[in-house]
């Protein structure tokens, strides 16, 4: 077990929220086509409220802190907030589009000891990237910022979300990252909007593109292992918790709402009314999330993929049931292995029954 895995296991055993993700604002200077947020400010936390939240998170044991948005640098108090986070010795990861980062901002970010900066780049081609962000010149500004951050010696990762408008561009972005000497990560997950609107899902990459990605060793490592038929589920797999959401990690909105994860918008408390530690320990919603194991999932427990599926309880929640299947993950398991999930088989069977069954009301006519 790696040291990081040991730390996470210890945090889970002690009930410590070792990781927190705080979106400082939902406002943004880009209008990305696939974005799941509403950008109007509906009452963001003040600087003082955020400082208080930081104190509470540090007391609760949070070590890894993601600061994101919206675009976090749109907050006028961004650097005082970052200073406070670092003074409390959080390990800070910053997620940004970097459009507002110039030399001075890059230098300050380095001085404050940010551990890594993750920056969204959708394409190496300006017309595609700027077409997605709806901000002319955004790719140029983002790439310039990456140079500034790199020159400060900061660890930078380019995050490339895959969707229909940039389906063919991931190799180009990957080359761009290599040329710039930064890390690269590809994310094929398009999520519904936080308000439940699922229209964005039509932007998800089609099966044939996922198949190519899952067979690219530069992205998945050992392809044979990654795409291997699923192993039989043993007791350990069936009793495992699905992910860190609500177990060792949580998400906080700019409006002080606490969710299990940014991708799992289950309202579990609000820091304007409750203390963080009370929400973390006593929220019925978080307790419900913690009660989920693979063994008690109605459909997935009998699925051949149960031991290896990346099933996201948040995506399942947004589909209507946190204990149900996440169809995006069913799709990924199928594309990896060629073996349909229990959910896919059940849906196909239901469709067949609907086709085969005679209508309940039938009208027969005959003319003589």
């Amino acid at each position, binding site marked *: 077990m790696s*040291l*990081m895995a*040991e*730390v996470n296991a*210890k*945090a889970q055993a*002690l009930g*410590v929220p*070792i990781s927190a993700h705080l979106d400082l604002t939902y406002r943004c200077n880009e209008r990305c086509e696939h974005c799941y947020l509403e950008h109007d400010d509906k009452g963001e936390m003040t600087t003082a409220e955020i400082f208080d939240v930081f104190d509470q998170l*540090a*007391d609760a*044991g*949070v*070590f890894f802190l993601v600061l994101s948005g919206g675009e976090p640098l749109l907050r006028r108090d961004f650097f005082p907030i970052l200073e406070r986070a*670092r*003074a*409390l*010795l*959080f*390990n*800070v990861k910053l997620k940004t589009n970097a459009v507002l980062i110039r030399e001075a901002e890059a230098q300050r970010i380095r001085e404050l*000891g*940010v*551990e*890594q900066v993750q920056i969204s780049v959708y394409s190496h081609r300006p017309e595609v990237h700027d077409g997605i962000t709806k901000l002319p010149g955004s790719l140029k500004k983002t790439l310039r910022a990456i140079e500034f951050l790199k020159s400060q*010696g900061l*660890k930078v990762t380019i995050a490339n979300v895959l969707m229909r408008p940039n389906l063919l561009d991931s190799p180009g972005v990957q080359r761009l990252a290599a040329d710039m000497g930064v890390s690269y990560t590809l994310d094929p997950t398009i999520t519904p909007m936080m308000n439940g609107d699922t229209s964005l899902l039509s932007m998800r990459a089609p099966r044939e593109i996922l198949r190519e990605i899952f067979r690219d060793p530069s992205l998945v490592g050992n392809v044979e292992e990654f795409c291997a038929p699923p192993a039989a589920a043993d007791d350990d797999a069936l009793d495992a918790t699905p992910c860190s959401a609500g177990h060792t990690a949580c998400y906080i909105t700019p409006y002080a709402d606490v969710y299990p994860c940014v991708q799992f918008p289950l309202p579990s408390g609000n820091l304007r009314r409750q203390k963080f530690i009370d929400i973390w320990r006593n929220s019925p919603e978080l307790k419900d999330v913690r009660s989920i194991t693979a063994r008690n999932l109605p459909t997935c427990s009998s699925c051949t993929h149960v031991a290896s599926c990346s099933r996201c309880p948040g995506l399942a929640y947004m589909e209507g049931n946190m204990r149900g299947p996440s169809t995006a993950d069913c799709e990924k398991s199928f594309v990896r292995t060629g073996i349909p999930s229990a959910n896919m088989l059940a849906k196909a069977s239901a469709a067949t029954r609907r086709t085969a069954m005679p209508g309940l009301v039938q009208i027969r006519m005959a003319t003589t």
Partner: protein
Amino acid sequence: MNQKYIARSSAIAARKLGDEMIVMSALNSTLFTLNEVATVIWQAADGQTPLSDIVQKAVCREFDVQPELAYQDAEALVNDLAGHGILLVSKQPISTNVPQETR
């Protein structure tokens, strides 16, 4: 004996987890865990208190250990952490610019 002063680097993250301290270097993302004794030394590394005082007042009073042996172990720990860039060591008191609150 030459005095040694120790201070935490400003380019680290740290948090107490149970009886251990987890520390990560922002320079190279290396993760460390410090045991209970090492955590006491880490928390006392204010740049102003000599290492010998830290060992005497913080370590020997808390743990049943011989002062000389404790100092040798503490010195080895300090040199190790300094080698990874997460602790500063000096023969003079060290003033740090970044306020740090260890929890």
